[in-house]
């Protein structure tokens, strides 16, 4: 799927030409994968179509909504704003890999008990983005206040929840981790 479907008639640049492809090798959720992909295929289509990792979602395809958020070389990235070929050699983690690693098991439990997801379409992106904030905290950032959490998640559109439960879930996880870090079990 492509971001911009022109409603105006226009010339197709590569009419009748065979699709250009290239081979890429990368690590996805800890597994080495090698595939031949169309050079125009963006990363999230590669994950969904070539690897059947359907936890990353497409909702705007131009970097606004955050539903396709994945981790590339340790940093969250929009899967729709990056081509698969740009991920050649990279270490990519998707919601499937992040979940399996257990890194955000506490956050996911907070999402569950607070009903911080309704339709769930934005949720993988929310979890990926929240994980980044929580990881920053672990590396010395301290417990973020609600405004910081809201700002951090302001690139992720949720149409169902009203955000409050998501903010609550992230805040509760941050506080719990801080308690564990300081050895305070209270």
């Amino acid at each position, binding site marked *: 799927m492509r971001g911009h479907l022109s409603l105006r008639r226009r010339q197709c640049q590569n009419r009748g030409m065979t699709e250009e492809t290239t081979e890429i090798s990368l690590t996805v959720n800890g597994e080495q994968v090698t595939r031949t992909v169309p050079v125009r295929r963006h990363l999230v289509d590669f994950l969904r179509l070539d690897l059947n990792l359907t936890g990353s979602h497409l909702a705007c395809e*131009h970097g*606004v909504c955050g539903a396709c958020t994945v981790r590339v070389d340790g940093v969250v990235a929009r899967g729709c704003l990056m081509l698969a070929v740009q991920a050649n050699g990279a270490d990519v983690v998707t919601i*499937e890999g992040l979940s399996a690693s257990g890194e955000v098991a506490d956050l996911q439990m907070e999402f*569950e008990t607070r009903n911080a997801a309704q*339709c*769930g379409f934005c949720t*993988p992106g929310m979890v990926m983005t929240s994980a980044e904030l929580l990881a920053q905290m672990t590396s010395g950032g301290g417990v973020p206040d609600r405004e910081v959490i809201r700002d951090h998640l302001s690139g992720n559109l949720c149409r*169902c929840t009203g*955000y409050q439960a998501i903010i609550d879930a992230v805040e509760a996880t941050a506080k719990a981790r801080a308690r564990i870090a300081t050895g305070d079990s209270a």
Partner: protein
Amino acid sequence: MSPADGSGPGLVGKPVARPNIRRLIHGKGRYTDDITVPHMLHVAFVRSPYGHARINGIDASMAETSPGVVRIVTGAEVAEICKPMHAVAAHRPGHKSAVQNMLATDHACYQGEPVAAVVAASRAEAEDAVDLVIVDWEELPAVMDMMEALEPGATPIHAELGDNLCFQHATRTGDVDSALAAAAFTVEHEFEFGRHTAVTLEGRAILADWDPVEERLTVHQSHQSPYQMQDIYSRHLGIPEHKVQVITPDIGGGFGLKINVHGEEVAVVAISKMMGRPVKYTADRMDSFVADCQTRDHLNTAKMGVDANGKITSMDYDNTLSVGPYTAYIRFGLAEGMMAITCAAAPYALTDYHARTRAVYVNKGIVGMFRGVGVPVGCTVTEVLVDQAAAKAGVDPVEFRRSNFHRDEDYPLTTVGGYAAKSMSLHRCLDACVDIMDYDALRTDQAQAREANVYRGVGVATFVEAAAFGPVYYGPSGARVSTQDGCTVKLEPSGVVRCMTSVTDQGQGTLTGIAQIVADQLGIGMDDIDVISGDSATTPYGGGAWASRGMAMGGEAALQAGKALKANILDLAASILQTTADTLTLGGGEIRDVATGEARMDLAELAKVGYFRQDTLPTGTQPELMVTRHHVPNTPYYVANGVQGAQVEIDIETGFIKLLGWWMADDCGRVVNPLMVDEQIRGGIIQGIGNTLYEHSQYDETGQLMNASLADYLLPMAGEMPDIKIAHVETPLTNTELGANGIGESGTIGAIAVLWCAVNDALRPLGAQVTKQPFTPEHILDVIAKAGR
């Protein structure tokens, strides 16, 4: 509501987490676009680039040679095997609509209307070839302004209809002209509600799989009602209904959008039937903006009369809305206006009322169903006038409301707009909301802020929501809309329970509520029950999800099914235990003695006898360990109500509005699960805020949608949204045993009204009042400038 003997775990009323949320949080959701089947093709649509145009021909020859393309299907080809849509409401005299083909054949009436489909091996290749389909367009003048569209001599979009008036209706109670003339004072205002769209995060999606060997259709679709779509595919494509199975997997947001029938989705099924292959279509964001059913787009004027005692006596309300070029199939776009004029003034004890609604055809997207359906409009018009009347009377708006609400002793009553209310809890909700907002403190804060030249506003708005519509509403219209819902409950041989419900769940938590209700009836825990939904072939027939009905209708059906299964279980147990059923009850997964609570036998043992050891039972015993019950409401709708409060701050230099606080006191009858109810409220409020502050589908005068992307169409994000405090006033409905009412739309309805009230409250010292939503900074500055002149 645990069983009366207290033996059940009492799950109803508890904030039980959703068992089906975990897979979504772990990225294991299964949405329509995630599903792939062998031999599948992909569709992209050729759409009208014009707001209004004739199609003189389609040349697909170049597109057909594009890589990956299998076939180009035109609207005319679809029409050969698929009956068109014609939405005319039999119960609304004078309503008229043109016949609408699934894909336009010779006349495109809005930008983005699909006219042909490219079927290709991949979505990307289908989209490549869309640009190569040459359509011979003849652009026609676009009818864009709803008032101009109504003028005598305006060119009708559909010549066969004669003019652009889709429908008009007036309602009159008492003598409004005399009452307004006799009033001590009147207030009047203009209200424009911008057109917007639903923006479900997951676009509409469908995977249609016609098996030409068995002549059987299987559809996976992101839709709120698999039953409705089974009916549509059967009738429009001539497929016997028992050979049509519609499955609705995980759905990435519905909000009413996905109860509509979109022609392109039916066309996808037609294409699959034509080609004998599975075909998938997923709307991308551009498709969604131009071709999803849209909503609102109302112009209103209204006037309210108040007597010398500060009592509202009368209201005259004129509503006009544009519904696009066709009446939406199958539920009609008329409800937007009808609901607005019916719900207006509903909380107040006035006596004289006149209202008119006119629905107008224009060359914009089709107006369909969306959360709130017209009620936010009528509610806002009323609440803004009430505030203006209170200000003119010099009375605090909370006090003014209190003295003008229906009195608690006056129920049952019919409101001037026509709502029949058995009861409402207006006074209790107002008290509860004022209490949680600490209203007096907010007024003190407001006064202090004004001394510092800061403009803060406090809004309080009452809303009344008619939820869970019954057969009286759609039945006579001719639309095949099921207002009944059903539930099957089955005891499995190991003693656990499965439910099959006709209610669908797009994240509301309805299925969790149903599990709680049935579990309570059978005395089991959440771990021992599972709920299946969203399959037209295997679940009871019903409505799906619409009109805030899931818990009210589907919950009651589940309660009755659970109760009936309990009776059957106890009958069987009595037979096994050689006692009478009335000495037994269920609790903790056991059949227990009523008097002593002693466990006599567990459900697994009972099920083992019922399924495998019938030889041990008295001759002729027929164990019935699966039961189905349905519920259809006995009234046109159930009336829910509540009050919202909001505090805002307006920067009068920039026109920006900051949301400082938000509160809601709601009465949705029995609260089955407060966690789910609160999240419905919060999500609904944020959508209402988005509608009022940001969202606007902006068309230019030629019919071009100017902001068809998420970069240009603004939505609420986490950074700007407030935390919301909620109080529950719980008045169980007396219509059903469960007593639950609707909650899905209350947040949105009240949020829009209260935001108008709060912003106007902040602007009142400047002599300014907003007149149109969304409240852009430009509009705020405009009304301030106008007031200053």
